[in-house]
């Protein structure tokens, strides 16, 4: 499965069973989050929440 990097515009390869919200690190150095909208698979830059992590 393929999607377009919203930062550099290049192609990003995704696993067939990609999850909504899955984090993908792209070669251009950006971390992307998978958005599944119906049959469309999109990517958006990952935004770190203020109360995230342990």
């Amino acid at each position, binding site marked *: 499965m393929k999607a377009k990097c919203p930062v550099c515009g290049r192609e990003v390869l995704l696993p067939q069973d990609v*999850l*909504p*919200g*899955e*984090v993908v690190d792209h070669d251009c150095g950006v971390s992307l*989050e998978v958005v*599944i909208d119906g049959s469309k698979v999109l990517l958006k830059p*990952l935004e770190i*929440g*203020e*109360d*995230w*992590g*342990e």
Partner: protein
Amino acid sequence: MNVALVYDVARWEERALLEALKARGAEVEIVHLETRPFKLGERLGAPVALQRSLSHSAALASTIALEAGGVAVINSSRAIATAHNKLWALAELLRRGIKVPETFVAHSERSAMAAARSLGLPLVIKPLDGSWGRLVSLAKEEETLRALVEHRELMGDPRMKVHILQEFVEKPGRDIRVFVVGEEVPVAIYRVSEHWITNTSRGGRAVPAPIDPELAETALKAAQAVGAEIAGIDVFEHRERGYLVNEVNVVPDFRNTVVVTGYDLPGKMADYVLRRAKR
């Protein structure tokens, strides 16, 4: 066996847990919080859910909603609420005789300065809830502490007006992250750093750490103190007082631990979740 995996973003950890559950024959119900609302009291197909939301507030809210529908969530809302409030967690640890850094709570600049006179300087000042070491500050001088308190009081968030002040524990260039899964303490790492904040998310280097019986017992008791079934316990090594528990993490990051130890922690967690689902 059905189990649910609850998350907001799926990182290496969540993918590894999903694969480990599937490899053991589980049917995994994916619960992605950004796209899935909950009707309070609704039932999932799965009797047990593993909570992996990075957002503290989303983890607590979704766990409460799932529990209302009869789902056993690992970890429970009580464990999440307790562990994410640093003061509450320390109080529960202390009540069970677990050693923690000496801690004061102060509600004003005046009381923070009084706490500092008792604790001595340097000291650590931190918010009630935080993660990845954010807003945890070291005050070496009275003036620095006064400025930190003043800045925190102007932040707008009323929770920032509650100041947790702790003794600064001189660490041997590292602290310990110990993992608890059910009744077991399978693996630990040192988080090595020249900086006083040793979180791996802040540049601390993960190195495999041995687990002696005292460390195992301390970690297990700490997890039980907040009611956590799966947890990462942050432990300081104090020169005179031995192991001090600083935090209990109920949705712990573990990628670095797996990378440096080779230990199959996602597999261990998956085994535990599936055992719980059979109960």
